[in-house]
């Protein structure tokens, strides 16, 4: 696979070139924080950020996504009484500057939307239309933000500041240029289309990346313990006595779930306007009172402690047991930084991992 190093002066040119082949998305600062947005002509991704406020999961799993529409107007003969699929844009897209944790997160999410039994066509088509160009969390002169953040715990959550899973190429921002390493055919195609094939010595650059990777990993000083989660008895954890105390502060807002790159729950809603309407997928959250509310009116998770427990059991126990693929968390730390009342998944994870039921 190709590894190149390009001058930062040539960067903008490559970005413009790539816009001829892809719709290009990248981090952009609006108001006080960075979010991913489609880059306009002449606009380069702003790589001087710690992480985006929201994960870019909405690129292929929009918060609200129309799937079907209908019409009851007899004057529209071709459409009346027919349920139609809403057409979407699955043209090639490139997302530049996604952090390795987010990219890895989406590989954890995929088995939910794409497995032997079920395939969610909307998620799969949208995800597969994207080329993921990651940005390693390394310190450089122009981004002395103190990366990785002190609340990042990726290395103990099955990920890392240079993790390559889920990425098609990885950008390493160094003081004197960008090293870009292709990881898949999609990534190599991206580099070819950007015409970023500057002189390069792959071995030397790879060694360079490995040094920076080691430095970045050493900067991570926040960890979770997950080694015992798999062997815990599910019902022991479920009925453990720590949930009441730990959930006290939780106000059951959905912030943690909406900012999380691995939270995948959604609801189906119908909305009609006069004689036409749409059916859409809509993010849901285990924090909300309508989550798992049955048609009968019964709700197995009607209280705060039940909803709080659901979030952590899902990520740290049910997922672990069902997929045998580690925890459903990559250690991005967004839920910790943005929780209004300081619920900290690291603490809950460690409590769960070390929990022993009273004899």
């Amino acid at each position, binding site marked *: 696979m190709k590894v190149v190093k390009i001058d930062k002066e040539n960067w903008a040119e490559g970005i413009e070139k790539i816009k001829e082949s892809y719709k290009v998305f990248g981090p952009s600062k609006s108001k006080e924080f960075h979010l991913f947005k489609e880059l306009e002509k002449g606009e380069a991704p702003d790589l001087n950020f710690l992480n985006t406020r929201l994960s870019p999961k909405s690129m292929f799993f929009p918060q609200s996504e129309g799937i079907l529409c209908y019409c009851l107007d007899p004057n529209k003969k071709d459409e009346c009484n027919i349920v139609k699929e809403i057409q979407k844009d699955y043209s090639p897209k490139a997302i530049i500057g996604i952090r390795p944790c987010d990219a890895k997160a989406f590989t954890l999410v995929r088995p939910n939307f794409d497995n032997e039994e079920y395939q969610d066509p909307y998620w799969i088509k949208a995800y597969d239309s994207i080329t993921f160009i990651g940005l390693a969390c390394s310190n450089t002169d122009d981004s002395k933000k103190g990366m990785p953040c002190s609340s990042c715990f990726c290395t103990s959550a099955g990920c890392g500041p240079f993790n390559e899973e889920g990425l098609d190429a990885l950008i390493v921002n160094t003081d004197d240029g960008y090293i870009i390493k292709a990881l898949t055919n999609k990534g190599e195609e991206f580099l070819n289309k950007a015409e970023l094939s500057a002189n390069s010595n792959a071995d030397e650059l790879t060694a360079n990346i490995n040094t920076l990777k080691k430095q970045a990993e050493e900067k991570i000083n926040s960890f979770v313990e997950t080694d015992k989660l798999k062997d815990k008895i599910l019902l022991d954890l479920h009925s453990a006595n720590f949930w009441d*105390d730990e959930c006290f502060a939780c106000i059951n807002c959905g912030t943690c779930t*909406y900012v999380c790159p691995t939270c995948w729950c959604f609801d189906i809603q119908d909305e009609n306007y006069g004689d036409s309407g749409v059916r859409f997928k809509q993010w849901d959250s285990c924090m909300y009172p309508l989550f798992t509310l049955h048609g009968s009116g019964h709700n197995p998770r009607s209280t705060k402690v039940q909803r709080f427990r659901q979030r952590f059991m899902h990520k740290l126990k049910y997922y672990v047991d069902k997929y045998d693929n580690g925890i459903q968390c990559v250690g991005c730390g967004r839920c910790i930084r943005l929780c209004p009342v300081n619920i900290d998944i690291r603490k809950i994870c460690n409590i769960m991992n070390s929990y022993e039921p009273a004899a």
Partner: protein
Amino acid sequence: MIGYMDKIKEISERILKEGKVDIIVGFRKGSLPMMNEPCVVKKAEDVKNLVWDSNCGINLVNYLTNRKEKIGIIAKGCDTRNIVTHIVENKIKKEQLFIIGVPCTGMIDKNKVASKVDSEIIEVTENENTIKVKTKTNEIELNKTDLLQENCSICVHRNPVVYDELVAELIEEPKDIDRYASVKAVESMSAEEKWNYFEDLISTCIRCYACRNACPLCYCPTCFVDESRPQWVGKGQDKSDIRTFHFLRAFHCAGRCTDCGSCERACPMGIKVRDFTKKLEKDCVELFGWEAGMTLKERPPLDEFKLNDPEDFIY
């Protein structure tokens, strides 16, 4: 305020031991700089975990709703005004509470602190009037008054309105503060400018409902946005549904909001949600001479009818 800590622990321990209360609702130290976690203390030996500093901005009255125990609560000015509102609205009885009153000098806005430095904040320590901020590359000292949450910087009710015991002498309330400068700025806009202002204000809203859930007034058993039979508001990201949520929530708080700032503090997207509620607060002052939570003897103006209620806005 850091100096209140010993007194808070002393009172909490005493009233737990004396059986005056079953639990204390307060804060424990958080896991990030400038974050404390609301907590409940049930045993006298655990009062050592309680903390108090300028990072106790979330309104604790949220945690009183529907509890059955006798509760000791550590309450700053705005918290006590929400306790009054809770009592007036029959959500709780005064006899169920032991209010540990905190004369408050304001809570700091962590976003403001973050904007003063270039790199990630590692540690923040507080003195009486200054805040020391340590980043990965630097260490600076800042004046607390420059870092206050906006609602705290214009607060004129810092002292508790009701309390059973104070942790310190009452402090002098600020005078000559224009509490409604931000509202007046919006009022002076043209209709189009106002529209654009509010569209921009809520443009990043993700409808996580952190503002609603952090609000001590939002205790409805079923919030209007959660009504599903029939559904009152669309669930999606349609702009009209997002507006509806914010407008209706604000109006529901009219005459009840104490401007405690919990909503704004909780918002993960930095939306100034108080821009909605502050206008309604100003209207209540101007139309009814009313400030929420200042007296146990009267109900909020939108909650009752009086013969001298203003009518000139009715056409």
